[in-house]
Each structure stands twice: as structure tokens, then as C-alpha cells.
């Protein structure tokens, strides 16, 4: 295809991506260098019969004028990145010096908001992803051996957790794990503990969120594996059987190797999706015990009276950096493959 024609075909799509994905990243970077203006304070002296008193008030007029003149705020350089809400360099080095051991240091660092969010985001990503793959494969193997007539309805039901809006899905589970809901009440009976609440302890909240994550994403890997199973050549399976391979050996040495490219695909998709975990934290009202990177950005942007654009932008930049690191191996591999094949 000629360069010119190519350009005309791709232009609308490309300009949408440049305007609303690439430029916003630039905008995020610029915003992250600024912080909100200080409020303009006026000191007035009131002199009465009992002497003079100084009162400090906020000059609303001047503050607003300042905001309008420079909506970005005042220049702050990379200060936002290093403050307590983000990389917290001062606090971390303080913790390093005062900590009694590695455990103490880690627990001090994990009390800082940014590192807490990083810890949860990474745990969520790296716990949920393998479980999604295993559960998906297990369900796919199970469904594959069902009679043909009930496969359709089974797939329909299996798709539901994935297709449902993440916020809605997490709300539905949240209501069920309420101590007055179906799962919550059952767990209280099973563990014989009337005060058991999945919402109270941070550990249980984390586990709940992981379970939600697996429930939500398992259908995706199930469908991919199920479609993959249809393409496993029957000849190879039969040959293995004739050679005396047991059922387990056939699974291990014929089916699983066929699934390996699918595992790579699912892992890539899941890493991308789980890294931005956000809605479940809102749905489960879990922000007290678990925050993710996306959640703290949302929290800064929503913030009551004043939105903390600078802070949100700095976290966003760090998140984008994280995504880049996560994708780097994939990109390098794809690039190598691309260079290898003749154009």
C-alpha cells in the first residue's frame, strides 16, 4: 500500500490516539511538575479598646485570580515525586536508618501510601494471574469432556462473571459477603464465629479482592483454552495412546505444550488488566485495607474541595513507568521476532 493512501486510511484512528492517549501522557507529565497555589493570606490588624489583634484570613479574591492566571499551579519540579505521598525518599531513608531489621524496614515502608498501593497492585497482579490460568485450564478441560448438548449453556453461564461490569460484579459479591448476606452468614456458621467479617481484617479483604479477581477473569482464560483444546490434533493424541501413554502423560506431553502460546497470550492480557485494578476497590469499599495505584490516582482527582492534580499526575507517571517495565520483555521479544522475519 502506498504511503499516501496508508496515511489517509490510518489518519482518523491515529489522530484520535495521539490526541487522547499520547498528548494526555504529556499533559500528565507537565501537570506532575506543578502543585496547587498556596492560598493568598492577608494579615489584618484590628485595633479596639483592648489593644490590637492580628488576624490572618484567606484572600479569596486574590487566590481565585491567581488560579485563573495560572491554572496549572506553581512550578514544583520533581518535588511532588519525592514527597511523602509518592516516592517518599526522606521517609524511606529515615526508615532505613532507624529500622531494627529488614522486617521492620519493610513494614515501615509499607505504611507509606504509595508503597502500600504498589504492594497491593503487584500482589494482586501476580496472585490473580496464575490462578486465573490454572482455573481457566481446569474448567476448559472439564467442559471439553461434557456431552455436546450441554456445552452451549455451560459456556453461556461461564461467560457471565467476565462480561458483567467490574464495578457491578464486585458490588454483587460485596453484598453477598456482608455478614448479613449469603456467603458472609455461611462463613460465620462454618467457622462458628459470629463476629467473623470479611471486611474487618486487611488480610481477609486482600483475599476477598483476589477471589473476586479470579472469579472475574477465569472465564477469559477458560474460553481461550477451550478454543485451543479444539485445535489439538487428534492424530497426535491417538498416536500417544497407541504408544501407551497414560491419560496424565497425554495431558502433560501433548495437550499442555499445545497450550503454551495461549498461556503467554493470557498472561500478557491478564498482567495488563490486573495491573490497573481499580473498580473492585470501589465496589468492595476496601480502600481502608487495600489501595491500588489506580485507586490513589482516582482518590486524588476526586478529593473533596480541591483536586490534587499534581499529586495524581505524579502517581500516574510512576504508574505508566510501571506499565512500561511490565511490557518491556514482550516488546523486546516482538521486536526481535519482527526483525527476524523478512519484510
Amino acid at each position, binding site marked *: 500500500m502506498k504511503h499516501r493512501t496508508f496515511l489517509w486510511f490510518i489518519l482518523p484512528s491515529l489522530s484520535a*490516539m495521539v490526541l487522547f492517549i499520547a498528548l494526555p501522557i504529556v499533559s500528565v507529565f507537565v501537570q506532575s511538575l506543578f502543585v496547587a497555589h498556596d492560598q493568598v493570606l492577608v494579615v489584618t490588624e484590628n485595633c479596639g479598646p483592648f489593644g490590637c489583634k492580628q488576624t490572618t484570613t484567606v484572600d479569596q479574591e486574590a487566590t481565585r485570580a491567581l488560579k485563573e492566571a495560572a491554572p496549572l499551579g506553581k512550578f514544583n519540579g520533581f518535588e511532588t515525586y519525592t514527597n511523602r505521598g509518592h516516592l517518599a525518599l526522606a521517609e524511606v531513608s529515615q526508615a532505613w536508618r532507624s529500622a531494627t531489621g529488614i522486617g521492620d524496614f519493610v513494614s515501615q515502608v509499607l505504611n507509606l501510601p504509595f508503597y502500600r498501593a504498589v504492594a497491593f497492585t503487584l500482589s494482586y497482579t501476580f496472585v490473580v494471574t496464575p490462578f486465573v490460568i490454572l482455573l481457566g485450564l481446569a474448567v476448559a478441560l472439564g467442559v471439553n469432556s461434557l456431552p455436546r448438548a450441554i456445552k452451549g449453556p455451560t459456556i453461556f453461564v461461564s461467560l457471565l462473571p467476565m462480561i458483567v461490569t467490574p464495578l457491578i460484579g464486585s458490588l454483587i459479591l460485596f453484598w453477598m459477603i456482608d455478614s448479613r448476606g449469603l456467603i458472609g452468614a455461611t462463613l460465620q456458621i462454618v467457622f462458628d464465629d459470629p463476629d467473623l467479617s470479611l471486611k474487618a481484617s486487611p488480610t481477609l479483604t486482600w483475599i476477598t479482592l483476589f477471589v473476586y479477581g479470579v472469579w472475574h477473569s477465569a472465564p477469559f482464560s477458560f474460553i481461550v483454552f477451550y478454543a485451543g483444546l479444539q485445535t489439538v490434533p487428534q492424530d497426535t493424541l491417538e498416536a500417544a495412546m497407541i504408544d501407551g501413554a497414560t491419560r496424565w502423560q*497425554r495431558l502433560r506431553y501433548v495437550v499442555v505444550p499445545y497450550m503454551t502460546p495461549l498461556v503467554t497470550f493470557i498472561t500478557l492480557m491478564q498482567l495488563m488488566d490486573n495491573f490497573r485494578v481499580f473498580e473492585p476497590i470501589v465496589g468492595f469499599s476496601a480502600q481502608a485495607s487495600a489501595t491500588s495505584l489506580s485507586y490513589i490516582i482516582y482518590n486524588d482527582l476526586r478529593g473533596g474541595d480541591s483536586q490534587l492534580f499534581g499529586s495524581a499526575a505524579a502517581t500516574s507517571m510512576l504508574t505508566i513507568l510501571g506499565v512500561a517495565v511490565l511490557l518491556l520483555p514482550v516488546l523486546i521479544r516482538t521486536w526481535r521476532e519482527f526483525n527476524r522475519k523478512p519484510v
Partner: protein
Amino acid sequence: MTPSSQNRSRGLVILSTSFVALWLLIAAVPFLWTLWGSFKVQGDFFSKSDWTYALYGVRTLAETGATFTGQGYHGAWIEQEFWRATLNTGIVVFFTVIISLTLGTLGGYALARSGYKYAFWILMAALVFRAMPHITLVSGYLLPFFEWNLWGHLPTTIIVLVAINQPFTLWMLHSFFLNIPKDMDESAMVDGCTRFQAFRHVIIPVMWPGVITTGLFSFLLAYNDFAVTAMLLSQENQTMVPKIASFLGTTQVEGNVMFAVAAVVSATAPLFALVMMFQRQIVSGLTAGAVKG
């Protein structure tokens, strides 16, 4: 039936079937439970004394005189004007899907037919963009949108969703167009068509299965979005998902939770219908990128 599955031992069949049955329970019960419970009062749905109240509607009978009540739905749809949010969702989703598909078809076709290096780089950039958490982009939009008075309107949100949708749409349609043989449009061009005419008369008539599948996923993305719609829409333009979130924000007055439950069920119903109608396309779409490697 595959030969290997015919001679399975009875024990294994029972094991695998009961595993699938367990999975189906885990997948379906939350929805059934919520659907059933949405017709009860809060005292039953969250029953302090006995969770079976939610099944039989004991308190519902005492409070309303029947075992089923539409109070939650009435509250959500009429008192809290959920119909407005439904309408907004309809508008946003419809235009997002139409515009995404138009842009994506043109772009995906070009990417599939161009052998140059830059096409590869555009695809790689799209992959990186696809991985971008949406909320980080939103934090880039907010301040400029406030400044230019673009914040809060439906068209702004539609355009943003279209853009966020593009990387995915491009990838999917790109791999779909790769499957349409090159000879088709090239022979049309030998016969004197321009590239665009070849696209118009040869490609468009055969592209619909791929476009419908991609459209379904664009629909899901726009319909399920929370990060963008919650941050970029004003109160009166809210779509369903942020509206449901705002039900939860308002103080948990008796009954108010049931509004949210009813709204949740209402918002899930179209998704169920969608899966029922387009199950095959969804399955093929999910696997399109994967099976080919």
C-alpha cells in the same frame, strides 16, 4: 465426541463433571441471588436473623403485604431517575461503538495491507496504549477539559472512549483483515479500482462478521467503563455505572441500598441478553488473537 473422551473411566467423568458443576454454581449463583433479592426489602436481602429470609421474603411480606416487591425498582428508576442514566448510557455506547468501528475499520485495513515498518510500530504503540490504566489518562484530561469548558458533556466522553477503544479495535480488525485474502482487493485494483474503491466494493461486503465481533467488545468497554465516565461526566449527564456508585455514596438509609441492588440488576440485564444473542461471536472474538499466536 473425541475418541479419547469416550473411554474415560467413570471416576474421572464424575470428578470432572462435578468440578464443572461447582464452577457453574460459583459463576451463576451470585447473579441469581441478587436478581431474586432485588424484589425483597432490605431487611430480607441483608437479614440479621436468618439468611433464608432472603429466599422466602419474610420481612417483605410483613412490610408490604406480598413476598415480592418492586419498591427498589420504583425507587431507583423513578425517584432517583435511573432512566436518565440509562438514556445517557444508551447515547454514549451507541456513538462510541459506531465511531470506533468506523475509525478502526479504516485503520485496521491499512495496517493489514501495509508491509512497511511503520505499520508495525503503530501496532506496537497501540499495544502500549492498550496497557495504559485508563485513570492515568483521565488525570491528563481533567485540567485541560476544565479550562476549555469541555468537562461534563456526553460528546467529550464519547470521543475519549473512542480513543481509548482504538488500540484494541485496531488490533482486532487488523488481525481480521489479515485473514481476508490480499488477492481480493488487489485484483479489483488491477481492474482499475482505486484503493478506496476496492475497500468500498470488495472489502466492506465481506467484513461484517469481524466488525460485529469487534463491535461487541467496543460495546462492552464503553458500557462497563467506570474510570472515564465517573470522572468526566457532570451529575446530570451521569451514565449507569457512576450513577450506581453514587447510590452507594449517599448515606445508607433504609431502602437506599435496595435502589442500588435494583439498579445493578437493571444494568446487568442488557449484558445477559447480549451474551445470549452473540455468544458465538464473543467466543470467537476472545480467541481471535490467541489461537493464531
